[in-house]
């Protein structure tokens, strides 16, 4: 696939934006300024950016307890995201959601569902709506490797299959569900093998190669859009941070972690861009802009007011 330089740089920018956002958030947590808990996305940026870049306006995603990367890749406003993390009224969920329920339906992101596997039927229902309303949109369902052991995975993929729904199920296999290695909890070597139980295509690709992720996603998304039904896309990646806020991830072997860091998507993509003749200065410039953007978001968030206590009682019923 031939991709224009602009688009490549946009991939780069988004990946860096996710990485820098997450690093900044981590720092804010360590400083004790940010409330709540977080599950971060460092190391998986190529998945979110590759997949979401294959989507069109009107397409929708569901995301998980680890949603920041997906939200940014879908173009959500990082000011509103940061404000949400700080529990401010200007947040994308007015402070009611927090990290685990980030979303903005206007941008095609259903508020994150932090129940593992909980979003799989919801994405399937979005697909059903598109089909029933004869709209040419596609729903993408992000999930982790661990989620594929939930019953909802099975039920949802089966229904998407029998009804031929425009849904692409994206499994980011980062080899761990919390502290548990994927090999302890399933016997298949490739999670994509499970697709055959529903007679839908299942493919496994390198999830740290943003271009590969983009092009294969595009294929499956357009296939779904054309009415040819759902698919399961497994992206092999790695979580180079702890599972959540305070997890040192001691269960990840040093060797494995080191290799994963070598293989992390931004490093790899940077090399590739440079091999294309793009200058390091260009990339640095992008990074700088991103950092400014993030600082503005932090400022925006911290300057924003909290919701008033009585706001607790709002937003329950229409």
């Amino acid at each position: 696939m031939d991709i224009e330089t602009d688009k490549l740089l946009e991939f780069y920018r988004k990946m860096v934006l996710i990485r820098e956002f997450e690093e900044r958030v981590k720092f804010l947590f360590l400083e004790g300024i940010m409330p709540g808990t977080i599950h971060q996305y460092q190391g998986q940026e190529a998945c979110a950016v590759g997949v979401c870049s294959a989507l069109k306006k009107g397409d929708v995603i569901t995301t998980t307890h680890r949603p920041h990367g997906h939200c940014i890749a879908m173009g959500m406003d990082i000011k509103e995201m940061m404000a949400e993390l700080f529990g401010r009224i200007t947040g994308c969920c007015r402070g009611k959601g927090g990290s685990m329920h980030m979303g903005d339906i206007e941008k095609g992101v259903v508020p994150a569902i932090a129940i593992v596997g909980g979003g799989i039927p919801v994405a399937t229902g979005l697909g059903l709506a598109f089909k029933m309303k004869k709209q040419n949109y596609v729903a993408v369902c992000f999930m982790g490797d661990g989620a594929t052991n939930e019953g909802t995975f099975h039920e949802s993929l089966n229904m998407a299959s029998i009804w031929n729904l425009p849904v692409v199920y994206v499994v980011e296999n980062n080899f761990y569900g919390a502290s548990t290695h994927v090999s302890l909890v399933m016997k298949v070597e490739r999670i994509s093998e499970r697709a055959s139980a529903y007679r839908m295509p299942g493919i496994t690709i390198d999830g740290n190669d943003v271009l590969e992720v983009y092009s294969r996603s595009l294929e499956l998304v357009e296939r779904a859009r054309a009415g040819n039904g759902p698919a399961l896309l497994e992206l092999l990646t790695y979580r180079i941070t702890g599972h959540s806020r305070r997890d040192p991830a001691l269960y990840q072997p040093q060797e494995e972690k080191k290799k994963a860091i070598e293989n992390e998507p931004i490093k790899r993509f940077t090399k590739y861009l440079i091999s294309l003749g793009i200058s390091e200065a260009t990339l640095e410039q992008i990074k700088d802009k991103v950092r400014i953007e993030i600082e503005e978001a932090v400022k925006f968030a911290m300057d924003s007011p909290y919701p008033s206590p009585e706001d607790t009682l709002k937003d329950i019923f229409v």
Partner: protein
Amino acid sequence: MARLTVAEALRQAIKEEMRRDENVYCIGEDIGIPGGWGGAFTVTLGLEKEFPDRIINTPISEAGFFGIALGSSLKGLRPIVDVQYGDFLFCAMDQIANQIAKLRYMSGGKLKTPIVIRAPVGFTGRGAQHSQMMEPFFLCLPGIKIITPATAYDSKGLLKSAVRDDNPVIIFEHKLLYGAKGARSEAGSIDASSEIPEEEYTIPIGKGIIRREGTDVTVIATLLMMHKACEAAEILAREGISIEVIDPRSLVPFDWELVRKSIEKTGRVVIVEESPRRGGIGAEIAATIAEEMIDFLIAPIKRVAAPDTPAPFSPALEKFYVPSIEKIMTAVREVISLSS
């Protein structure tokens, strides 16, 4: 005007709403199958003829299709989801309690989730897993409205309101009230049919109704128990005891005003519920009365309820298990005798 059973009235409500709004659709098991039953109790029977694309027959995958209903509601569809027996709501409980009830709130009010959940309840000789009154499990769950129509008239009017409501609404339908006609009617059914007006009507969610006026004791009861309460009132009237029977019709929101006015008059209250006593809907009603209306009371509150066990199968046990007219009468006499 035509006399319809509850099942027929519900079907008519669904049909009218599906005609009115093409976003309304039904999803569930064994619906829309030619030669099938229209769900477990005929409510959606035949609707597939008029709406072939809007009666979605699912695999036996409750968690899955409840989540699907939710997802579809985010894009403007208005699903009516049904389970064959209320007991199976537990299979979808995560989707209902963690997602359907909360997604709007978590979004800061930016989403609407107009979903109707239809669930048959009631003890009908099927043992512990096909019988439970499910109201208590949802009463304590913020984010979903609950309606409990006891007559065909109310069933139609409330279901139509539910379909038009932009929030999730659960309707509990009682197996013994669906109707005494037809192949799938239940032994022990009570006639809850009504004259249904030709012209369209709805009943607002959250408004109760006085089923029988009285002055001595307020009896609060829904669904099948409402009918039993009326029968008890009839008998007690002959003894000179005047019962006011209140049917709240909605549990969330609840018509506290109606209850307050009645208790102000009677000073005595008996709450009848079909589910086990502990943590049932009667607990919430009694507690609120004890908090806010205790000054009106001239006698202790009484609850009549099933015992704190699962439902037994044997008819000999079920008869003891489900609150009877006799037990209602005993409770009424008790509050009268205990009056200060």
